[in-house]
């Protein structure tokens, strides 16, 4: 006797029905924590001196990244396990801009959403901080982050994840982040997210001819606590066009609708057991 097509189809459907819900509409936007702080970076003010890059390294006790300076000084090309912030240059001849990269401190962080034991978590002031005790180095946060922020210590025997934690250790001492403290042009400033947003919009309104009329991070990727205003299109300086949906929301919605209250797995388990018991009885009586 061969398996009928219907039987085989039932195999497929049984599994499918149990495990998968159709793609669902994603969740509502996430509000910023009441105490949310962040950065505002203004491309028109930055002169590319990289004082922030050095100050960040000092404040966070990072080894110097001398790969590109023949061993002489800290000159990171990109974020790495030795650079929590970096200044990049976008240059297209007629148009150019500096760009500061660091963790965006998302309102709905993909890294924290991915992290199994909550080593990455949104904590005080909405800052996404890292607790090495709960990290196993799986690097799913690196897969998840749409900005490519968390970095791994590839050459270490006991590696950690490294990323900007908005100098939370300095904030605890009543100081501001190292990068904003040293910036000679106040191209990057620190403050409450609401204040920074207000300031950003003030600048856009004041000089509409100069700025792209948008505050990146106000809504992008569900919103971030580090905000940008720019005189060149944001994608040119490496800020991805994410839309207003946060990155983890689709996955979370699908996963939550399947596993809500863990009811579906328990029901499926009961159903499987019942079917198998019935089959066994049928066989015994046959």
């Amino acid at each position: 006797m061969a398996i009928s097509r219907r039987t085989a189809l039932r195999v497929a459907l049984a599994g499918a029905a149990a495990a998968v819900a159709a793609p669902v509409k994603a969740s509502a936007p996430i509000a910023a924590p009441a105490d949310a702080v962040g950065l505002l970076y203004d491309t028109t003010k930055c002169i590319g001196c990289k004082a922030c890059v050095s100050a960040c390294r000092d404040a966070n006790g990072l080894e110097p990244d001398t790969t590109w300076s023949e061993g002489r000084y800290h000159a990171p090309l990109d974020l790495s396990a030795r650079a929590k912030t970096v200044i990049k240059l976008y240059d297209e001849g007629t148009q150019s801009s500096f760009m500061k990269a660091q963790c965006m401190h998302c309102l709905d962080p993909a890294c924290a959403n991915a992290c199994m034991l909550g080593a990455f978590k949104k904590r005080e002031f909405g800052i996404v901080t890292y607790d090495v005790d709960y990290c196993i180095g799986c690097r799913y946060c690196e897969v998840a982050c749409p900005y490519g922020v968390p970095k791994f210590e590839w050459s270490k025997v006991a590696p950690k994840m490294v990323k900007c934690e908005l100098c939370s250790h300095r904030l605890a001492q009543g100081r501001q982040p190292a990068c904003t403290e040293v910036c000679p042009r106040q191209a990057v400033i620190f403050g409450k997210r609401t204040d920074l947003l207000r300031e950003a919009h003030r600048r856009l309104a004041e000089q509409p001819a100069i700025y792209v009329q948008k505050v990146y991070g106000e809504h992008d990727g569900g919103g971030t606590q580090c905000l940008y205003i720019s005189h060149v299109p944001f994608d040119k300086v490496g800020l991805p066009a994410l839309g207003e949906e946060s990155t983890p929301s689709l996955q979370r919605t699908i996963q939550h609708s399947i596993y809500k209250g863990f009811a579906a797995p328990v029901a499926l388990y009961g159903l499987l057991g019942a079917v198998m018991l019935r089959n066994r009885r049928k066989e015994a009586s046959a």
Partner: protein
Amino acid sequence: MSARAYAVGGPILTRPFKVLLALFGLGGVLILFRFATGLGRITAMNDGYPWGLWIAFDVVTGTALACGGYSVALLVYVMNKGKYHPLVRPAVLTSALGYTLAGFGVALDIGRWWNIWRVPLFFWRWNLDSVLLEVALCITSYMFVLWIELSPAFLERAEQQTGVPWLARFAARTRPIVEKALLWIIALGILLPTMHQSSLGALMLIAGPRLHPLWNTGWLPLLFLMSCIAMGYAAVVFESTLSRLAFGRAPDLKVRPTSDTVPSTSDRAMLASLSQAMVPLGTGYVLLRLIDLAGRGQLPALFAFDFYSVMALLELALFMLAIGLLLRDSDRQKPGTLFKAAMLFMLAGSLYRFDTYLVAFQPGAHWSYFPSVTEILVTVGLIAGEILAYILIVKLFPILTLEKRDVAYHH
């Protein structure tokens, strides 16, 4: 009606066994090197491609190829097709070995491996939003479930160890308990892969905008699930065909079946019939993939004939070729065609997983990844270890079933 399995017996240290042992040893040395120097020296992984061959193959593809135990259990216990019972033990063995390999793969890959025990035990720290947590817990539990499903085989063998009376007594006492609970354990053995194989698809959804649109769909979980079940059947055909070639059809019987034996369906007919299940699963997969692409307006991208389009088309072509080989009953009866179709299914499903995890992942133009030689040799070593374990176990324990069937024997 249950079939009785026998240990194959025969010499262990054959030449292929020694070759595999050498590969396994080489992998082992490289693994020591990895633990001594970190991940950067031995692998090509980087901050753009934080997951490489070890995750994409050893874990994601490896566990899908190890879905034989899951697929056959669905058929035998849920669909109540008892005639496939002889396939259960070898399928569960390959699954147990495949999942164990995945476990080793994870342990090698994670940076802070000494903390791994915290994941299952620190339940108050569990982040229930983390799909990886679900996958990790499910795969770990399923690994244990598979070895428990298989334990009657080891206990049967232990019962015959009259030289070690305490062991024989322990086995004789334990086996009925295990067999009584087996139904609920097998039910768990169906539930868990349904959960984590679909979640392995959901895992990459978090990459969001960095996942190429040809693969970035909310249907990833269902596509992964359907293809893994088909891959499971394919792996059973593959494994049965090879083990019959390797171990012959008339092993030396130490224990005679009871007189009640009836002739069973021949292996060949059983596999031919089993292989039909792959057709609707594969067709469903291909249709869902196409409908999803059409629904998301990605059909032009599918036929753009750039690198991504070619990879996606290759996946679909492999699936359709495999399905085509199995459509006619006369073709399914040919062991060569059946074997080819099984290989194609395994290849198609594997390519789909590689594409989703590595090709479709786009961290930016300045990043690239291709596994290093040492990285590949570690994976080869692990696979060699898996085959070694399979050979050892089928030679020493009652896993494979013979042409005779013992009606009186019940689980």
